[in-house]
């Protein structure tokens, strides 16, 4: 390959590395990299750099002052919403009352999907002070913490050795029952794993509000993992459990 061709490949090789190419362009890159040692070296260098950056950069937590600001701005207004609305417009309030009546009819048929519930629980947990009830990287601390709070013993594993360290656990409420939520980290990202006993169900995965989720069953337990981590790494994390 001439140098000129290779120079024009650089941004494509990078885009392939960043997961930005469609299948046809990715195939073009793969074909070129196979016959061009210089470009193969570039691709390998990009992979090395990404791995090191993700492993070595500090994951700075949100400072306390910003956590407090987030909590303050998230707080509901002091005037109850229904009163504020009634003050503004009686017609709107009537509409709201009608909507409320309709909701009674409609809501039971459209119970929130488990995936939505799991993602909502994750987002709620990310609010300051809600993430963990027990903060420990030791599974022999986290597992006994659930005893007496649940009618089952959740499997607690630590995957620190493969880059998914355990951070702690908390009680959550999902699918109409209290459940155990385990928190893991991957570089800057947090992963929530909710687990409860249940019949084996088909695996599911998807994205809601920018969060990826993944469910699976194993050993009589149902697992839901939610994170802003990318799908590939979330899949790799799930594979560790099976």
């Amino acid at each position: 390959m001439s140098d000129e061709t290779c120079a024009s490949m650089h941004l494509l090789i990078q885009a392939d590395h960043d997961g930005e190419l469609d299948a046809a362009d990715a195939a073009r890159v793969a074909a070129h990299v196979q016959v061009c040692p210089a470009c193969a070296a570039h691709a390998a260098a990009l992979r090395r750099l990404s791995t090191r950056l993700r492993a070595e950069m500090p994951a700075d937590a949100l400072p306390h002052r910003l956590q407090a600001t987030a909590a303050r701005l998230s707080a509901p207004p002091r005037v109850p919403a229904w009163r504020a609305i009634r003050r503004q417009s009686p017609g709107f309030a009537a509409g709201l009352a009608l909507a409320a009546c309709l909701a009674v009819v409609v809501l039971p048929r459209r119970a929130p999907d488990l995936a939505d519930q799991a993602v909502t629980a994750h987002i709620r947990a990310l609010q300051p002070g809600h993430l963990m009830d027990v903060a420990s990287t030791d599974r022999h601390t986290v597992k006994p913490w659930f005893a007496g709070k649940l009618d089952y013993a959740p499997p607690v594993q630590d995957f620190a050795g493969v880059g998914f360290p355990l951070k702690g656990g908390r009680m959550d409420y999902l699918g109409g029952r209290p459940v155990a939520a385990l928190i893991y980290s991957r570089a800057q990202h947090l992963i929530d794993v909710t687990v409860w006993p249940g019949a084996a169900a088909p695996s599911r995965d998807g994205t809601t509000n920018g969060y990826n989720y993944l469910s699976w069953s194993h050993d009589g337990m149902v697992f839901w993992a939610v994170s802003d981590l990318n799908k590939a790494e979330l899949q790799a994390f799930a594979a560790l459990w099976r």
Partner: protein
Amino acid sequence: MTGSGPGEVFARIVVPHLPAAYRLALWLLRDKAAAEDVVQDAAERAFRHIATFRGDNACAWVLRIVRNQAVETLKKIRPTAELDEDLPDQAPLPDADLVRAEGEITLQAALAALPPTLRECLVMRELEELSYRDIADIVGVPVGTVMSRLWRARQLLLAQTEVFRA
């Protein structure tokens, strides 16, 4: 059902992205107190303008507000237009205390020494895993510019941190 008061919308749209916003501000400004001030101001601003949020990309919306605020602060701290596109041939030397005893430049030091325009693209791509499109929206440049900045950032880092390797 999720509520729709400004606080609830803020909790849903903005709060999940504050850690990423803080990390971006920290990498741009390289000063914890300044980054904290920037995110504090940006959070207040996002709250005031929460009703103007349209669409589905809350992350890009929040990071754009924080990034703009951080760039303003950066201009005040270093008015010598460090944000300029034009790069010196060699990146400035990293802080001495970030250089390891054995002489190898740490990755962190090399990243810190990148010009901010390159650094922000790399941080958003590598550490926050944003798409080219999102980064382009946040920075306000075409996708092609994001790609070339990422390439230059990576080549600079590789040249600096792998120079001592056999």
